[in-house]
């Protein structure tokens, strides 16, 4: 309860019943909730109330969710606020676009309230963790990534990765639970400005998985969207 207390969450969702379900469940976890059903109003609340996280429906009257997300990430003052998209369309192109705009995660309707609470907590946890310096060892049992020595061990056995594979694994494992689009992985692991096709990412991942052996399952394919590194070694 302590980690949630005083954490303010904004729900922008135009279906009042769903807003109430979200509010009830997150308040029960100790979060402080504010909500609206209108996009313009949502954008106003983002700026004035400075929540730590926004649950954002994509199809909204006034201003759509993707536009709110875009504005949030363009604005210095609101860039750091975490965003979870809530969508009924389940359209992969919207999800990919949202993630590329900077959303942290997404859930598709209908969703389980329990799952939503878990996602909210995971994103907030990740937010805190990402603030820490990106040096030293990263442990995701049975994988150990040594950033300083550029070395990866699986079950204490060293594996040889290409520099691209190393950066891909590092990017994914630094934010377990987070879905990365192929475009984001290109930017993070291969470098901006380098001409690589999205299919190219699949090839690198395939080779990386092969080298990870039994731990390959930690990298999950999200069909039509991208990849994700499982949280807690996939045991959760």
């Amino acid at each position: 309860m302590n980690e949630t207390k005083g954490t303010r969450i904004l729900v922008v969702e135009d279906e009042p019943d769903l807003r109430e379900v979200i509010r009830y469940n997150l308040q029960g976890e100790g979060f402080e909730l504010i909500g609206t059903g209108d996009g313009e109003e949502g954008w106003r609340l983002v700026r004035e109330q400075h929540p730590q996280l926004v649950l954002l429906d994509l199809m909204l009257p006034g201003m759509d969710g993707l536009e709110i997300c875009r504005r949030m990430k363009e604005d210095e003052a609101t860039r750091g606020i975490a965003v979870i998209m809530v969508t009924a369309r389940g359209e992969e192109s919207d999800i990919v676009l949202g993630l590329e705009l900077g959303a942290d995660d997404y859930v598709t309707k209908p969703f389980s309230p329990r799952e939503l609470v878990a996602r909210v907590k995971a994103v907030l946890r990740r937010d805190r963790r990402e603030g820490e310096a990106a040096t030293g060892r990263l442990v995701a049992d049975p994988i150990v990534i040594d950033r300083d020595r550029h070395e990866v061990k699986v079950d204490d056995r060293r594996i040889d990765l290409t520099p691209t594979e190393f950066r891909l694994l590092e990017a994914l494992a630094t934010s377990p639970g987070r879905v990365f689009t192929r475009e984001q992985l290109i930017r993070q692991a291969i470098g901006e400005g380098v001409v690589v096709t999205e299919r190219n990412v699949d090839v690198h991942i395939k080779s990386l998985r092969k080298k990870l052996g039994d731990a390959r399952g930690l990298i999950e394919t999200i069909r039509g969207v991208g990849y994700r590194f499982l949280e807690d070694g996939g045991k959760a």
Partner: protein
Amino acid sequence: MNVPLLIAGSVGLLLGVSLAMFLRREGPDTEESAAAGEGAQLAAILASMTEGVVAVDREQMVLHMNAEAERIFDRRSIQCVGAPVWKIIRNPEILDMLEATLDTGLEQEREMLIPSSGGAPVRRMEVRVAALRQGDGERGGAVMVFHDVTRLRHLESVRRDFVANVSHEIKTPVASIRGMVETMLDDREMDPDTQTRFLQRVFAQTRRMGRLIDDLLALSRFEDDELPLRRDRIDMRRTIEEAVEQIRPAAQKKELCLVAELPSDESFPVEADQEALRLVFDNLLSNAVRYTPEGGRVTVSLKKVGKQVWSEVSDTGIGIEEEHLDRIFERFYRVDKARSRELGGTGLGLSIVKHITARLGGGVLVQSRVGEGSSFRVHLPLAE
């Protein structure tokens, strides 16, 4: 959806054979005149085709160009026959396909956007190029068939949008129902008031889904021109009276003045499907009641105008802004989504009204002024 494409394909093949005969024109006099007769017939067939057809010889000179192809490429065939094809069709993609067929003898097929000529919109074409074989089986050029699939593709996108809309409309109540029920199952200590409120909302959401499904079924039934509609002789006055009685409790609840101006000494016979006609007035009246604030007025009138029956459902409601008037009959189009949902609308009512009245040989018109009210006029042919 595939049928027109198949036709285009088979027409292309058939033409390949016939054109070769038509274009050869050799042999003794008697055969020649027979061939000329056949040729004229074939030219007439080609001219009336909805696909564009261009035939070229081995040297890429135009042998024939039908009327539709003239329209597509904005040329007169008289100037084209005998000219090199690249002077007529200045499209590298098509010329590449043609060359490939002339080289390999293999059929080429591709869909592409063809820029307009003379201000017409860009069209999406399915282009097929097949080898033209002479009577002796030797390759003698190629025939290109241009099939306009603009409308087909448009319809496909309309269908996709519709499916996306339906799934969105269904997922939204399901998401609320699932969220509330799961929360109740998880939280055994939920206070009774919240529990009751959640259950009432679940109940309301299931009713909303029920209405949506009813409307979707009605829409698919009345939209489908293939499904026959009953044509019984019906007195429209009675149908309206029944619809008015049904809506009366809802009108009274909002303290609306509900007036039926129906001439009592006259009958208004129309040939219609009783159930469909009821749906028209149920929808118009429930909209009028829904969008008229308390204390307002809803009026239904009925009269004969020439060989038509006119019925008008008017209200003193919130009205519709002019920019929306053209679109309110579209499926799932809502002027104000939140308000429509709050008031229990599915977004399909007026679309159902439009389809039914059109199928019955009539129509529906709307007039509205924001803040003053709306008026929907249904007109149907008067039965003999």
